[in-house]
């Protein structure tokens, strides 16, 4: 399910659609909330870093997946799945 969600989000972002951006934002927020479980000292810089790190990781993952799609001549997420 995670793969389908990620791949669909990737497809939407590539199409620059509103749904894709919202999907990405929800994914980033979920990951930051998950990471906050490990923030024992409750510092603000942890949240700032986690937001930055999650956005960077998400964009990098999308770009890596997109590069792999192009390299392997996969032109749709459905073909990949």
């Amino acid at each position, binding site marked *: 399910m995670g793969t389908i969600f990620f791949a669909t989000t990737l497809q939407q972002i590539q199409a620059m659609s509103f749904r894709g951006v919202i999907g990405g934002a929800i994914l980033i927020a979920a990951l930051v909330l998950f990471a906050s479980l490990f923030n024992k000292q409750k510092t603000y*810089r*942890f949240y*700032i*870093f986690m937001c*930055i*790190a999650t956005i*960077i*990781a998400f*964009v*990098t993952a999308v*770009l*890596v997946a*997109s*590069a*792999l*799609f*192009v*390299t392997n001549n996969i032109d749709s997420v459905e073909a990949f799945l």
Partner: protein
Amino acid sequence: MSLEALFLCIVVIGILCGLTPSLVSIFTALISGSLGQGHGRNRILGNSTSFFIGFIIATVIFGTAFWLFLGVLTPLLATYIVIFVAFVTASAGLVEIKDYFWYGQGLSHRPHKHIANRIHRRTTKKYGATNSVLLGMVALGASVTNIGLGILAITSLLFVSGIAEPVSWLVGFSLALIVPLVIILLAVGEKTRVSSIIKWKEDTKGIMRLGAGITLILLAWLVLLVVNSSVAIGVVI
């Protein structure tokens, strides 16, 4: 993106990657070692120039070797390696950004103990042009996790852009890497105390890491954008 824009990108990336605490520390240690030996201005200039030559030679050899390695592989495998290099570069950039918030804690860029000992020996016990050249080469080994990855990413960028001759680009990149060190050398020449440069480095090392981290991440993204054909190098729109 035109070739001129790519060259400008590489120069800016080089300057920001070169402004790292490890490289600044090694260079200030070289200068303070020479000053401690009572060397004059010309001798310090000679040692610094030798250091720069050693650093440029090591950078160009490292980048060209990686270029040749990519060249002997099949195009598909080479592209996979380029994607992997971009991923590792982005991850290293994230570690650099982490150092802005928690400097030196947990996973961090530190030179290997063997390299650190070698640098210490070359800055405190050995002096001379040959030693400075070797120190310049070892300095690249000390900062291989940030500058080294930057060189790999730049070489990957040149490779996927279809640029036929990488050496002149790598020389340009390595010249950009030493720009901050040249400025430090000029400051020492203008009677700025080395201790105040070291204090400035200690005060701003977190910001330096942040700048280098953001630069590495943007470089990795640029490589990935070229691989997935979103950006075409050499094409002016």
